[in-house]
C-alpha cells in the first residue's frame, strides 16, 4: 500500500515537472516580444487595443475607439526620453499639416510625472491630443518596449505599421508618411 502511494506520488511529481517544461517551451516558442508591432510590420493589420485615458492637455477622457473613421498616429512618449524631445516638433508639424486630411496625432505620455509631461508640452508647444498613461498600462497592452514608439492606426482601428525609436529621422519619415497614406486610404 505504502509502495503504491509512493509510486503515485513520484508519478505526480514527474508529471508536474514535465508540465512545467511544456509550459516553458510553449512560452519561449510563442513569445514574440512586441507582438503587435511585429504583426503590423508583417502586414497582418492587428486591431489596436482600445483604451480610455485621462486627457493631459485638457480635462476629460479620450477613448481610442472614438477616433474610428480617422487615421491615428499613436505616439508613446515620456518627458525624460531624449529621442522623444527630438521628434516632438516633427509630430506637431505632422499634426498641423495633416489634421484636415482626417489624421489625428495622439500622444500617450507613459511612465512619467504628470507635471514633467505638462512642462514638456509647453516647451514644445504641442497642440495635438495628449493622454496620460502614468503607470504605463497601455504601453504594455501595445507591447511597447522602449520610448518613443509610434503606431499608425487606420480608419477601422487596425495597426498598419509600427516604429520603434524616433520617427523624425530622414530615413524613417518616408516610411511613416507611406503608412499614414495607407491608413487614410482604408
Amino acid at each position, binding site marked *: 500500500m505504502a509502495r503504491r502511494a509512493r509510486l503515485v506520488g513520484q508519478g505526480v511529481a514527474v508529471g508536474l515537472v514535465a508540465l512545467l517544461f511544456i509550459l516553458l517551451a510553449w512560452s519561449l516558442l510563442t513569445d514574440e516580444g512586441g507582438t503587435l508591432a511585429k504583426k503590423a510590420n508583417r502586414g497582418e493589420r492587428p486591431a489596436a487595443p482600445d483604451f480610455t485615458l485621462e486627457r493631459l492637455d485638457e480635462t476629460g477622457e479620450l477613448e481610442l475607439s472614438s477616433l474610428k473613421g480617422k487615421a491615428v498616429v499613436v505616439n508613446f512618449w*515620456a518627458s*525624460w526620453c531624449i529621442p522623444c524631445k527630438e521628434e516632438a516638433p516633427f509630430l506637431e508639424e505632422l499634426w498641423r499639416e495633416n489634421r484636415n486630411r482626417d489624421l489625428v496625432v495622439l500622444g500617450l505620455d507613459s511612465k512619467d*510625472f504628470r507635471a514633467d509631461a505638462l512642462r514638456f508640452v509647453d516647451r514644445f508647444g504641442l497642440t495635438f491630443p495628449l493622454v496620460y498613461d502614468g*503607470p504605463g498600462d497601455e504601453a504594455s497592452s501595445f507591447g511597447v518596449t522602449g520610448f518613443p514608439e509610434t503606431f499608425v492606426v487606420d480608419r477601422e482601428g487596425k495597426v498598419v505599421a509600427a516604429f520603434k525609436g524616433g520617427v523624425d529621422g530622414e530615413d524613417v519619415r518616408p516610411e511613416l508618411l507611406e503608412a499614414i497614406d495607407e491608413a487614410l486610404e482604408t
Partner: protein
Amino acid sequence: MIRSAALALLVGALAAGPAFAAPPNAADLEAELVCPVCETTLDQSNAPVAERMKTFIRLRIAAGDSEQEIKDELVAQFGPEVLAEPPGGGFGLLAWLLPLSALFGGAVVVALLVRRWSRRGPPSEPPARDRLDPELERLVDDELARFDG
C-alpha cells in the same frame, strides 16, 4: 502645581510627537521603490526616470513630506508597481500569504514525518545469524571473567 505642569508638558510632548518625527531617509526610500522602466529598485538604477524619481524624493523630503506621503504620490503617478514590497491588501496580499502558507505547509509535513518516525518501535533484535553461538558466547564470558578476576 509642579506635578500638574510636568504632566501637561508630557502630554503636550506626546501629542506633538509626530511633528518631531525624523524625516524619511532618501536611501531607504530608494531601496523600497522600483524604477517603472527597468524594474529594479531606484538605488540600483540610473535610468533617466529613476534619476527623476530620486530627485522627486529628495525634494519632497526637503518639503517635509512623510515616507507614506511620498510613496502615495509616486503610486498615484506610476501605479502600485513602483512599490518594491506589494501592498498589504487586495491582490498584493497574495504575495505575503503564499510564502507563509508554503512555510506552514512545509512545517506540517515535517511534523507529520517526525511523528511517524518517532512512532516506530525500538530496533528489533539482530537476526539470528548475527548472534554468537551459545557455546562460543559461554567461552567468551569465561574468558572475560578470568580476565576480570
